[in-house]
């Protein structure tokens, strides 16, 4: 965004963000942080990251454009600026990414006034961490086949079943929960709840990924309870509300909190640098035209993603409101995976050296990062499901179901 298109408020706010981040950037934690917020398991990391998020929130970098009653700062069109400045700066990520990225947009769109006032402020401050209880062992891509049951008893619901792939489940106070109140109606039998994780009926068990890291969990719900007041939307509207959450998860929603992860543009620059500095067979990898072509093709696709998000905002050029946004997660995760695999190729035999090997490049960041890219291509609707959605919703092809 160039300077001349900003209002005075935005211009001043951007300068404030830059100054504030510069002055308040936290010292690094003595134990290096994992690559992404969903891999955090060390409780001292949690405290460190919660402190950082709370400071950013107090300073006005989170919930910039929302009303005060929801804990917002009541500015105009400033969130995008804060998010961009946070992304640019070399600062820790926000630990409450599910809260900011999924709970907030879902509650803003579908929550009651009481729910918004109760739940939003501690999400922004990072005080209450959120997790997402959608997938089940038997319900992955076919999410609506979920079987966790919700039975109404008085003014509360009794929940039984299990959830899986629950990132941050080990730290979370609350869960965005999909459960079935009616076994006879696949889509209309689902209701959406906000569930308290700190109760006897909830057991959290860690799952280890192929990288060896943890961070996500299986969650067992054994006569857990949820007050009826924490139901989002009507009984039976769960699928519709879930779509609001998933739209945000897949990058098509309206962002309200800054989620800081390393941008693909930065990773690309690092991989080009890696190619220029890695020597093999008598020359640098960058000097090999075959490798260079592969790298420049990736550079082209990452630049295309930047220009796509620019075009997505232009009504007369975007080919429909959802056409480009619905591609974001799919293309971003696939290109990221290709990019990381290319980095392994540049390293050659050295790519086998993993975390804590003294000779590993970047302490094993590349093989670790490569394996973690499958989080992007599988979770939040796999690439196959994304292609179904694009074909059906954007191009109008017949539904696969």
């Amino acid at each position: 965004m160039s300077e001349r298109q900003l209002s005075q408020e935005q211009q001043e706010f951007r300068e404030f963000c830059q100054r504030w981040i510069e002055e308040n950037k936290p010292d690094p934690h003595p134990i290096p942080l994992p690559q992404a917020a969903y891999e955090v398991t060390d409780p001292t990391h949690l405290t460190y990251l919660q402190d950082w998020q709370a400071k950013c929130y107090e300073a006005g970098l989170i919930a910039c454009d929302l009303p005060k009653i929801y804990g917002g700062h009541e500015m105009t069109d400033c969130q995008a600026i804060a998010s961009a400045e946070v992304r640019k700066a070399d600062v820790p990520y926000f630990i409450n990414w599910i809260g900011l990225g999924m709970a907030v947009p879902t509650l803003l769109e579908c929550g009651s006034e009481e729910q918004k006032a109760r739940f939003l402020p501690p999400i922004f401050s990072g005080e209450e961490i959120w997790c997402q209880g959608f997938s089940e062992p038997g319900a992955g891509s076919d999410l609506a086949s979920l079987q966790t049951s919700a039975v109404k008893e008085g003014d509360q619901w009794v929940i039984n079943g299990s959830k899986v792939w629950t990132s941050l489940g080990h730290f979370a106070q609350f869960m965005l929960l999909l459960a079935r109140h009616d076994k006879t109606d696949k889509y209309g039998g689902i209701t959406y709840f906000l569930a308290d994780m700190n109760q006897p009926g909830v057991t959290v068990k860690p799952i280890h990924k192929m990288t060896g890291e943890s961070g996500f969990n299986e969650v067992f719900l054994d006569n857990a309870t949820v007050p009826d007041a924490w139901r989002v939307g009507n009984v039976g509207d769960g699928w519709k509300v879930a779509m609001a959450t998933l739209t945000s998860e897949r990058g098509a929603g309206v962002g309200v909190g800054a989620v800081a992860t390393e941008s693909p543009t930065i990773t690309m620059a690092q991989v080009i640098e890696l190619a220029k500095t890695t020597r093999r067979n008598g020359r640098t990898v960058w000097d090999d035209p075959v490798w260079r072509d592969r790298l420049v093709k990736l550079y082209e696709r990452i630049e295309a993603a930047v220009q796509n998000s620019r075009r997505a905002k232009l009504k007369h050029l975007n080919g429909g409101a959802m056409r480009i946004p619905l591609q974001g997660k799919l293309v971003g995760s696939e290109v990221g995976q290709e990019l990381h695999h290319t980095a392994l190729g540049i390293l050659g035999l050295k790519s086998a050296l993993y975390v804590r090997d003294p000779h590993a490049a970047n302490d094993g960041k590349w093989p670790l990062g490569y394996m973690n890219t499958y989080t992007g291509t599988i979770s939040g609707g796999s690439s196959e499901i994304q292609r179904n959605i694009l074909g059906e919703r954007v191009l109008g092809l017949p539904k696969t179901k």
Partner: protein
Amino acid sequence: MSQPKDFGFDEDVQMLKESFARFLDEQKTIESLRPSIRGTEDPIHGADRPAFYDEKAWQQCIELGMHAVSIPEAQGGIGMGLVAATAIAEEIGRYAWASPLSNTLHATFVLNQADTANARALLEDMANGLRVALGIYGEEGSLLPDSTDVVADNHRLTGVSWYVQDAMKAQVLIVSAKTEQGVALYRVDLAQAGVTIHRDRIVDLTRDQAHVELVDAPASLLTAGGSECLEAAAPALATLMAADLAGAGEWQLQATSEYAKVRQQFDRPIGFFQAVKHPIVNMMIQVDEARSLVYNAAAAFDFDRDDAPRCAHLAKSSASDMGAFNARNSTQLHGGIGFTWEADVQIYHKRQIHSEFLFGDGTWHRTQLAELL
């Protein structure tokens, strides 16, 4: 200097693009092309194709001012930039329009870099409807701006200018020729002694092509700095061709998607099957990437010229690969019918693989781009 957020796509450009698209829609471009290719199917025994273009439509296009969109106002044009010309080129591609308009846009951006009285005079003639083509390649088709097989001697040209696009529709050729001081650009009248147009037999049905033989042909100098001029124009030419590819690529996407909704096999429209649905989505992903990079490249040329070469390489690299990809998938997913002469997808397929290589293919642009990274 930085680009505007909206790629410089202001209301004027939007209106221009929409009215031009409406105009082309009325032309029924493919339907009117069909008679010209009838009877020419057989590559061995078939008749030669006439160099088809609809003269009445071209006159209407001139009345709309589309031919003069980027000719400076001082030379009688509209004086809009590459953003506007790119918007037009995208529609030419979408409608696979056979006309002298692509050449006119290309020649405009070459001449706009020349800044000489003769170049301005030629722009003025173009504003009055003169049809001009570019003769800037030698036989090997090298893309370097100083490659030509034509030699100039005292304003007379000898040699062959290769791969002249839509030569049969042109009246004047801009020829790059070697002089003692380097490569210069000349204006050559095609209807004169010493000029022979040898029609090439090409795959693309929507264009014609020729190599033009010059024997001591009289010419007037447009600029002595031919290499510099072509180098400065190169980002514009690549961007215009990338836009053409993007427009045609979107047509291929829509045509294939529509076909997949109506063609029934195994008791269902074939678009139900993921083996068909997913490649169509991949066509969309590629065309969207190309299109965004095209607008970015056009805006860079108009608003941030230093960044124009990088952005043009990105656009043409993406668009060339997309053109090939969408061509392949459009034919494959149409099945047997897509492989026939009667299918419209074959017309677009051939146009795309022609455009893929014109002004540089993906590999070449990536090689150039790597030098800038």
